[in-house]
């Protein structure tokens, strides 16, 4: 790891959520709210990972289906299903996840660069791989994921 990255990751906090058996992490500074599942209005003629739009205190916010984005099979909504609202640059976007698990602090030495593990072209939205108590957490770069 370069010095610059070490510095950048020194004290970052991530929210960990699950999709099926996998665990993912989002930079907590990008999260505005975590909401219970609510009525999502489908928007016709959009890519399949756009689940629709919701009303968040008077604002219309698009919601993304991460399962569809990662080609995972759809599941039933449960008590644990959450919508994480992110603010990326000027845009707010919701993300549906199976369950929000915990908050973790990650230091640079527990994060591994993704490119050393995964060698696929579309892995640029993976910020890195974090290790917490022997578990693996994929840290996501949402700006890349929604192609801002």
């Amino acid at each position, binding site marked *: 790891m370069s010095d610059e990255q070490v510095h950048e990751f020194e004290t970052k906090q991530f929210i960990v959520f699950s999709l099926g058996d996998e665990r993912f992490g989002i930079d907590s500074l990008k999260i505005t709210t975590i909401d219970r599942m609510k*009525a999502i*209005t*489908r*928007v*016709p*003629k*959009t890519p399949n990972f*756009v689940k*629709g*739009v*919701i*009303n968040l205190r*008077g*604002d*219309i*916010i*698009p919601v993304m289906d991460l399962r569809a984005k990662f080609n995972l099979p759809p599941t039933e909504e449960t008590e644990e299903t959450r919508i994480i609202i992110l603010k990326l640059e*000027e*845009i*707010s*976007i919701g993300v549906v996840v199976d369950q929000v698990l915990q908050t973790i602090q990650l230091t640079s030495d527990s994060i591994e660069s993704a490119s050393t593990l995964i060698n696929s072209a579309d892995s640029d939205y993976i910020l890195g791989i974090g290790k917490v108590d022997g578990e693996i957490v994929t840290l996501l770069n949402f700006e890349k994921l*929604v192609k801002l």
Partner: protein
Amino acid sequence: MDMTQYLQIFIEESNEHVQSLNQSLLQLERDPEDKDVLNEIFRVAHTIKGMAGTMGFTKMTKLTHDMENVLQAIRNSEIAVTSDLVDILFKCLDALENYVSTIVATSGEGDKEYTDIMASLKSILENKGTISATPVNTMNNDSKSSDVSAKYITEKLVFDEFEKSAVNKAIDMGMHAVKITVALNKGCLLKAARAFVIFQTLEKYGEIVKAQPVVQDIEDEKFDSEFTVVVLTKEDKQLFLNEINSIAEVEEVLASYLSKFNVDAKDAETENKIEAKVPEKIEKIEKVVAKEENIHEAAKQNIAHKKTQRTVRVDIDRLDVLMNLVGELIITKTRLEEADITSNQQEYRETIEYLERVTTNLNDAVMKVRMVPVETVFNRFPRMVRDIAKDLGKDIQLIMSGEETELDRTVIDEIGDPLIHMLRNSCDHGLESKERRRELGKPEVGTINLTAYQSGNNVIIEVADDGSGINTEKTKAKAIEKGIITKEEALNMTQQEAIELLFRPSFSTADKVTGLSGRGVGLDVVKTKIEQVGGTVEVESQKDKGSRFIIKLPLTLAIYQALLVNVGNEKYFIPLGSIYQIYNWSADEVKTVQGQEIILLRNMVVPITRLADTLDIPQSDSKDKKQLKIVIVRKGEKLTGLVVDSVIGQQEIVIKSLGKLLSGIKYFAGATILGDGSVALIIDVNSIT
């Protein structure tokens, strides 16, 4: 001291002052003797100078200072106001405008110096008003800028059309055209070799479009000790000064920026010819320009993103009303909290009624805050028409009325471009030349009336000229030529239908492509733009009497009436303004023409669209129903039927944007929030087929 906190105020006020200068200058041109206007101009220039000085924008301060000197001389009757003088003052104004827009984008005034303008201002003062030393139209390539010493002005640069268009293009793309004069030491031995080194240095930073003497002569040493080149570049002239000064045996270097040439619109033909002759070169320049621009734009956008805020200036009275209403709302809230629902039903009901009244008023007041007079758009037109008239060699007077008519901010932002297009259209195609008008016995001065007024829930804006009117025969002929209609259709067309042809995509009746219009982007774009904000355009025209474009706009975009319909399990809104009628139609009577379902409505063929299919809505029962519910909507002049499952009813809705991420999708004009808090989409009738 940190001045950034005042930057926004500075920008707003400067824009206002520049606007008022614009108007005053036009007035001064009309009536050069008007002392009041002159004083006003002086006062405004002085204010801008003061403001710029306080903010530390020295270049802007210097320019306004020079302007003030000239204005002072006019006030003292030392100089007479001439059309050329006003032209230069307008140039100052443009320069000021440029400064302000640079400040908006970058928070700094940039490094443009406008030495040519300042030189003209100085020469006016020195020559007591005669501007012959720097004639206005050739001022662009005049080298008499303040930092050029007189001994090097040997001869004026002569540009051919290609060079002019290259320079103009570069400036359009935000680059500089730098004129550089290099004087070599008198005793320089290998002048050509020196020149070669200098050329090479220059080409590192830009493209040389012009050399005087011509390159061949320089190479053959057929020049005295100095030569002049024009370089198109993104760099500042200072860089060139430094670079060339560091080359040995260079005695002196002078550099100045060229401004745009006034390429006459009528020269388009010759321009084309020349472009054909030297296409590679233009392409090369364009490539350089495009490359530079990308970097430039990206950088600019990044900064602009952070700096520019969209603000509205609001009448303080309107804000007071808002404040009061919010106060009442809070009182009502407290009353509701305290009201015991079970024991005092009466009190509870009253409070709810009161709440209803307050929210309605609040809604009204907020709407009023969003209203802006059309004046803010109209303001720039007198100057624009003046410039176009000069370009075309026509006498045009623009009469505006109803500038105080108010429109919603969102609509105001959208109508500027369409109006510019229509005004240009009137100036260029509508109004005849002076000679032609004399022949027809019309006054030589052509008139364009720009009128705004409110009518019910709409604002109407009319652009009317007393020109030749629309030549429907020519329009039809053109339409046949383009294969838009057949000869038979043309014969059966009414006058009005022929006029409507103008709104077809890429339809232009201009015989010649001019700088102003006829480039294929035409009235269809105007129409689309206006329809996007929920408006309509109509045309009336009479041969040799003139034409009138009538634009009808909704007062506001934010709130309007819409019809809520059900399709399958989903709910959609259709704007009431575009609904023609709602029918129950027997499914058997739906016919198919080449795969398109149609119905015959009072002998009119109306195509129908099944919303369930178009929007991929599952579980719709309209497929197997005997009776179809059809909402007939207007798409421009045409009717289309939208098949829905059921109609729920009419509602007042607040439009919300779908946001940047979904802004590209078709079929929807936005979304709104239903009573239960869920979201329903609003169908964009114009894009659905």
